[in-house]
């Protein structure tokens, strides 16, 4: 049993859950306290000791069913079928009883049955399951890697079970029983039944092997899917993926907030504020009953986001905006502008709308700009320089999202230079890789001198790294 639980814990780990040794030990202790006859309780006990994240519960449930019960059920089904097919007048139980009686009459020592044969005759499926598992372990079935090996491992497991010898023993048992007074019809039925048993056994072993393979593949697939969402390029996302991604972004944002709250707290309490304290405690005759500390001023940056919302970078903009607005309380103020060739402010949209609706609206131009034009970064920066330069002071971080594909228009890099001079820093996130910057109609190279940090940002992983650095 312990071995089975350890193997199960390994399986959970492989599918991306964090199950520590201490937790599998807890599982042992918990099971000691319970009667594990009840499957549901058994499952709950394993879950509450080993699975600590509610997100993992569905995966756990699926793996549990695969690992623990399904094989036994299959085994039972296979042998029930074998029993039903007995057809004829003789039902399986009567036959087995007859065998039992017959065996008692046989002289002791005349028959030498293997473990497997005994289990088959007594129809003890629990014991049979144990035997199969053990044989499979000895056959090395857990090393199975692909479909082509199913036959091989099935055969090896059957060999380990000693199936051939057992078949022989059963046949000879039928023969012996026939001699000791079983009718021909009964003996034939018995032989047929033994055949069916062996067939059911073969099928069950094969099923077990397949199951083993499935378990191996299952977890890898899961893991692969989860990781790839983080690394998937923003360029090609389906609706479904965008929805899933939103949740991932929300989680990442929450994590960053946690880290920030630790960083902030360390700084929170300042020195004793002697002057105010004395004044406040004057009523107590100058005895300082109330202590007062100076509060440190929080240094929260202001943020101005300039988002290119042309179709090529819309997704980067989408998630960046979600990130930033999820982290709103980390900034004194966020202003958000969108542009394609004209530039307009969409900050108000975020005020009275649910965040996801607001982002959708902002990406659509937010009623302030026309999104169905060709990108013109020069003009957008010029408009910002003309109308909004006053919004920037030395506490402001300017974040530009765009691919800098300017359609051969004038880059007007001097606008960005002026912005850069006034702002605390200017960051540029570009969904294209740095090797493409400055080629074709990309004017990234013209803007680079006026940018403090320029980063490639093509997937969530990169995005979250940048956000984290931004807030440090």
């Amino acid at each position, binding site marked *: 049993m312990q071995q089975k639980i350890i193997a199960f814990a390994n399986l959970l780990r492989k599918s991306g859950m*964090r199950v*520590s040794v*201490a*937790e599998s030990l*807890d599982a042992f*202790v*918990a099971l000691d*306290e*319970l*009667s594990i006859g*009840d499957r*549901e*309780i058994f499952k*709950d*006990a394993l*879950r*509450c*000791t080993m*699975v*600590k*994240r*509610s997100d993992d*519960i569905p995966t756990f449930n699926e793996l549990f069913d695969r690992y623990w019960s399904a094989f036994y059920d299959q085994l039972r089904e296979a042998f029930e079928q074998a029993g039903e097919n007995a057809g004829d007048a003789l039902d399986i139980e009567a036959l087995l009883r007859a065998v039992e009686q017959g065996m008692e009459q046989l002289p002791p020592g005349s028959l030498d049955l293997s473990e497997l044969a005994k289990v088959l005759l007594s129809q003890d499926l629990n014991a049979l399951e144990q035997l199969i598992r053990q044989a499979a372990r000895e056959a090395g079935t857990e090393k199975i890697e692909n479909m082509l090996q199913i036959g091989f491992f099935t055969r090896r497991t059957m060999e380990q079970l000693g199936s051939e010898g057992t078949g022989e023993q059963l046949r000879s048992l039928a023969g012996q029983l026939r001699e000791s007074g079983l009718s021909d019809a009964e003996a034939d039925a018995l032989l047929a039944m033994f055949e069916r048993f062996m067939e059911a056994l073969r099928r069950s072993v094969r099923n077990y092997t397949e199951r083993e393979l499935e378990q191996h593949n299952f977890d890898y697939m899961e893991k692969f899917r989860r990781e790839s969402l983080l690394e998937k390029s923003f360029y090609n996302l389906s609706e479904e993926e965008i929805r899933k991604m939103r949740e991932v972004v929300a*989680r990442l944002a*929450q*994590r960053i*907030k*946690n*880290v920030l*709250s*630790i960083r902030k*707290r360390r700084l929170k309490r300042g020195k004793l504020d002697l002057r105010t304290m004395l004044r406040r405690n004057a009523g107590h005759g100058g*005895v*300082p*009953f*109330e*202590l007062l500390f100076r509060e440190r001023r929080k240094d929260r940056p202001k943020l101005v986001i300039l988002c290119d919302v042309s179709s090529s970078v819309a997704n980067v903009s989408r998630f960046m905006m979600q990130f930033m607005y999820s982290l709103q309380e980390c900034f004194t103020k966020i202003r958000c502008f969108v542009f394609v060739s004209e530039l307009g402010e969409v900050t108000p949209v975020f005020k009275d709308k*649910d965040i996801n609706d607001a982002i959708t609206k902002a990406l659509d131009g937010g009623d302030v700009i026309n999104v169905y034009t060709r990108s013109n970064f020069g003009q957008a920066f010029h408009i910002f320089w003309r109308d909004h330069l006053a919004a920037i002071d030395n506490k402001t971080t300017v974040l530009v999202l765009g691919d800098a594909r300017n359609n051969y228009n004038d880059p007007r890099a001097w606008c960005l230079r002026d912005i850069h001079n006034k702002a605390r820093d200017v960051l540029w996130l570009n969904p294209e890789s740095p090797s493409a910057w400055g080629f074709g109609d990309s004017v990234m190279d013209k803007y680079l001198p006026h940018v403090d940090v320029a980063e490639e940002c093509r997937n969530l992983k990169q995005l979250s790294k940048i956000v984290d650095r931004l807030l440090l």
Partner: protein
Amino acid sequence: MFQSVDDVIQKLGQQDYICGKDIATVVYLAAKLEKPVLVEGPAGVGKTELAKVVARATGRPLIRLQCYEGLDEAKALYEWEYSKQLLYTQILKEKFAETMAGATTLRDAAERVGREDSVFFSDRFIVPRPLLRAISADEPSLLLIDEVDKSDPEFEAFLLEVLSDFQVTVPEVGTLEAKHRPLAFLTSNDAREMSDALKRRCLHLYIDFPDEELELRILETRVPGIEQRLAEELVSVMQRLRKLDLKKTPSISETLDWARALLALNARELGEELINDTLNVILKYEGDIKKTQGEIGRLIARRSTGGESEGGDTGASESPAPSSPPAPPASSVKRGVLH
């Protein structure tokens, strides 16, 4: 404390808390293994209630620590009563002078004051907060740390220490060890994920929205006066409602509130208009209410057709609802309610 999992179900049931085996197993194990339980789940499914009920069922006093942002050790564990200490020194000034009398050097005086240290750093001046109270209690208690996700990660690290060995060190007094390990319940709304270290020390329990049958049983236990048919209708509407994409999905506590409201209004059955009027009991956002109003027709319509087919299957154990003939559902139900 509990004999078996079924015993847990029964004992909690006596306190009007209806739960399935999943919850009972965890409670049973927590009591057996003396491990804290981290209870997660959406708001209003009875996480806090579970702790309260276990306290009542086991007869343990409940000590509650409500977490919030900025909660620190001083509020959770203990605090020196600074003003009281100061007050004492003020009152005892003359006594001090007596002690000091005869001290010739500064060192001597300081030495004498030092000897009286323990007077000022003793139990007398400690204000015990919930955690310390749970640890130093003379009888076994139940510690409820509510909404632990609202606390700061820093506090969580501190909590780890307490939860792993149930002992606390007060530098001036020494280490206090729990006389009886309290049963600890931590609840979380998943506002943020708790650290792995904390989770490792706890048993984990996720309480989800109950299924229809369980919800009905809970409703009938908690709101005894309700008619069975109304209860069934109400639960089925709630179950459907949860499938809509709402900002705040209504929970068990909303079901109970709603049932009580309907009872107070003397309602006998749920109609479109009635739902419309009482929607604000279960939905807390304007947007959610608007969204649902468009769906009410469908909510009831599906219910009444579903009810018909079920009635047919079971051989009409229930008298067919006179006011909601089968089709076409929406309009007929509305008419039914008007009279």
